[in-house]
């Protein structure tokens, strides 16, 4: 009986820690979205040489980082609203499938919190964060790219070579290089400030 109660309590704790939304989550959602928007806006000048329509976006690390540290909802919001903000302040308008794709990136990257609790002290947890980040990028960019087949009537080959490969590869490389750097810096900052 006592074991079942303990298990229930633990389950509830895990659920609230991963899925709960408190004041802290709201502030980090907003911060993540604003950072993603700002970085996207300022780094739009760095265009990929291979694909004229996809910019080289180190900003992708923002939803990955916020997801990995603060959970899937924060990742989802940072990615989705951040992409919307980036397009909004650039004056490009609103493109819902790319917003949903970016939201998926942050959400899937955030699921790693189930395994790491948002703490990255060992290389194992950082590797896990990288794996979830890679999955998030592939699924999120895949969603955004392949919905274009239906929305813009592109062929599968065009969606793959024009969107999925350049955007996905760029996001994967940027995300996987910058994410561990940010996680280590965050760990050092938390240790220093005791927060």
């Amino acid at each position, binding site marked *: 009986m006592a074991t079942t109660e303990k298990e229930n309590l633990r389950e509830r704790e895990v659920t609230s820690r991963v899925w709960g939304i408190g004041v802290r989550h709201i502030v980090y959602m907003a911060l993540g979205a604003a950072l993603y928007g700002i970085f996207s806006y300022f780094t739009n000048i760095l265009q990929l040489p291979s694909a004229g329509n996809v910019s080289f976006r180190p900003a992708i690390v923002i939803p990955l980082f916020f997801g990995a540290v603060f959970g899937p909802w924060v990742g989802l919001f940072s990615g989705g609203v951040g992409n919307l903000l980036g397009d909004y302040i650039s004056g490009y308008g609103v493109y819902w499938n790319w917003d949903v794709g970016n939201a998926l990136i942050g959400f899937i990257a955030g699921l790693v919190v189930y395994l790491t609790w948002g703490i990255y002290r060992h290389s194992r947890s950082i590797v896990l964060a990288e794996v979830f980040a890679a999955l998030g990028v592939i699924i999120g960019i895949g969603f955004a790219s392949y919905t274009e087949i239906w929305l813009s009537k592109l*062929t599968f080959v065009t969606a793959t070579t024009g969107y999925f490969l350049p955007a996905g590869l760029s996001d994967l490389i940027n995300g996987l290089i910058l994410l561990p750097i940010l996680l280590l810096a965050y760990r050092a900052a938390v240790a220093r400030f005791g927060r």
Partner: protein
Amino acid sequence: MLITLPYVKRDTPIHRLDPRAKLLLLLAYGLAAAQTSNVWLILAGFVGAACYYGLARLKWSETRRAWLFIIFLNVILVFGNYFLSGGAIVQGIDLSHQHQLFSLPFLGFLNHPPYIGPKPLVFSVESITYMLTMGLRNFSIAFLAVAIPYTTNPGHIGVAFKQLGLPDQFAYAIDLSFRFLPTLARDFSVTLDAQRARGFELDKLRGGIFGRIARLAPLVVPIVIGSVVGAEDIVNAMELRCFGVGRRTWLTELQTRPVDRLLMALAMTVFLLVTVLNILGNFYTSGPLHILHEQGLPAFLLH
């Protein structure tokens, strides 16, 4: 390097529209336009979207940057799609009797090794019309999409999402993210200047692709970590004020006018009508119920 939001304060019918109506119109039109390749229907949508954009009275000098990007992107996509498909793919349309005009020797994908090889690039009435339809569709969506940031007060976006039924926390987070923008833009600028003073050159990053990305760390890390640590003060301030304990009220409340309701009803009706027609079109091979599955080419072009 300071950030300026694209919103242009002006008194036009589009500026006065409720943000919810603008968002709903964009979504409904995008989903409806995706369901057909009938050139006349898409042309009608394009004309309607262009009139809508015209009513916003936005100047070229204000929207130049966005339009140059959109024109470039669309040209690449439309022509890229044509060349990559060898001009042979027209989605959702019966192409059993294509009217070929001419073909050029070109490269294409093959279904046997080496998978890429010589293949004629077909120019037919149907494929050229399809290319035109694609361009019209993309530009009509762009007319509706670009109008949003230039005609909508950013302060109304959070409220609009709240009144669309989004939970308070998410709507407030959207509002807060807009408030963060000027501060973060300033931090970005200050950090960039500080790192440049130390010899960091964003425009001339050396090394291979991996080295270049890793060299962005001196810019990314201080801004992100500084903001995350600094945000703790905002969290504390909000908790001290018991944020989220009771029901939240909003200073601004959006009121829909009859014209907003009419636009929303029209957008939803068109979307539903197109969806029903699209479904029915699968059961009829000709006639008015099949209209969405036809390109609608005039007879003189086919003879």
